[in-house]
């Protein structure tokens, strides 16, 4: 959905940049299902959490490094899993994932996440 919105916004850049953002938000709010909005909110949270941990590692301390790796990779891994869930359940991609029902996609996502967290908490120390 979003790529379409940006491509429509580009030609009128000079005159209505705020309008472009507004129309982007508007189009996003109107055309995105609440389910995908939940997914997007979770993705933003994971991204912010990862950024905070990375900054803490660079600016404050990378000790214990295993804890940093566990915390940071839990964010990255969860982000990847959630992003793939989003692309699988997006109605716009239905043609591509004909064989994958949304239930199946969520089950894969949940299974993958549980395995990821198992490793993360083992590695956290």
């Amino acid at each position, binding site marked *: 959905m979003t790529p379409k919105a940006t491509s429509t916004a580009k030609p009128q850049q000079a005159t209505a940049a705020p309008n472009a953002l507004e129309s982007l938000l508007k189009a996003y709010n109107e055309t995105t299902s*609440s*389910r995908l909005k939940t997914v997007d909110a979770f993705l933003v949270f*994971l991204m912010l959490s990862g950024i905070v941990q990375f900054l*803490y590692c660079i600016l*404050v301390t990378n*000790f*214990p490094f295993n804890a940093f790796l566990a915390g940071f990779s*839990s*964010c990255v891994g969860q982000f990847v899993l959630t992003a793939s869930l989003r692309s699988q359940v997006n109605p716009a991609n239905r043609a591509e994932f004909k064989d994958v029902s949304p239930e199946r996609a969520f089950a894969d996502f949940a299974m993958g996440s549980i395995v990821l967290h198992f490793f993360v908490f083992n590695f956290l120390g």
Partner: protein
Amino acid sequence: MFSRWGLLLVLGLASWATAKSSTGDSVLVILEPKLDKDNFSIFFDGLREKGYDLTFRAPKDVEPAVIEYDSPQFSHVILFAPETKSFANDITPQSLVTLLEKKTNLLLVVSSKQTPLTSLAPEFSLVLPPPGTPLLSHFPERDTPATVIPVNVSPNPVVTSKLPPVWFSGIPFSLQNNPLLFPILSAPPESFAADSEGDSGAEAVVQVSEKGGEGLWAGSQMSLVAGFQALGGSRATWVGGVDLFSDEYAQKETKPGVKSGNKEFASAVAAWTFQESLALRIDRVTHHRVNQTEALQAYTTNDEIVFTAHISKFNSETSAWEPFSGIQDMQLEFTMLDPHIRTALPPVPGKAGEYSVTFRAPDRHGVFKFVINHKRKGWTHLESSTMVSLVPPRHDGYPRFLSAAWPYYIGAISTSLGFFIFSALWLAGDDRESKKSKGSKAE
């Protein structure tokens, strides 16, 4: 009751009778026939008074052998045979070295004549002057020949007390750079070794000294009595002239009314040679973690380790080993191939004979050794090596819940919580969506 007292008395007498030496009381004196035993009565009687058991033998006698069935028969050997050219079969330079290896102490006397002993001297890093060149000195002015010289005793570990000058007549030696060898009596600065006992060779000496002194056997760098502490712990003392020990020199006056220091000096030299003085030993070493008492086979990297050594010194007056705290410069090494840690091992104040240090083990795992290697001239070498392993922490030995890591913990926990909340929302939303989709389908 009587028998018990009797036993105590016997024990007391036995301890009285034991030698003052820390290694044994039997002494073999190999005395060449030319020398009269009675001329050395002060020296020998002094040894007997201390509790030594003297056995005399001529160099060519076969009995008693110094080594029998591969075991040395005497604790100490005095070789007063400076001019003997041929010995019995059991006394060769090799057998003397073997004696030293087998912890027998040697007191060796050489003279200006060429003997088997002069060829043994280079093995001890001693360089003797050419045959027939005794030490001469024309100072101070005196009525004795130039070869009979009063020598001032400079303080050294073996002779600690201040002694009057010592009469000496014999040869000097120069000491090569051997850490086991040290001078006990140095030659007077104005003395020199020269060809002739008269002054006919004096011009040659003057000529040599004008050329910068090269090849000149002179000065206080020469040594008259030198001590050698073998690696095995036995001691050998080389003396440049046998007359040092004679009664005549012991009673001869250096100044009117002042007796020479020969008696005390000879006694001190014998005491050092026979392991009475400057004899040390490590009784035991212990190691443990700080605040624990048990010695471990394996320590963890970065552990705080306490190492303690107990050291005794032999006291010849009581014939007993007594705790000794007088070493100030001892070091401990914690070694794996190289010393990873080298630290001072100071005496513990208030605890006699105890030396202790606390140090942090290196952050390196492997097989390490606690090494004490204390070698000082004149003193018994102290060597000790204790092996321990140093292992990394066990899997549960690392610190946990570090405050610095809380952002990471919170990150991981919040991701998991987020996953649960997301899943709950998804599943809850699923119903709504499906209802909606059903509704839309119905429409």
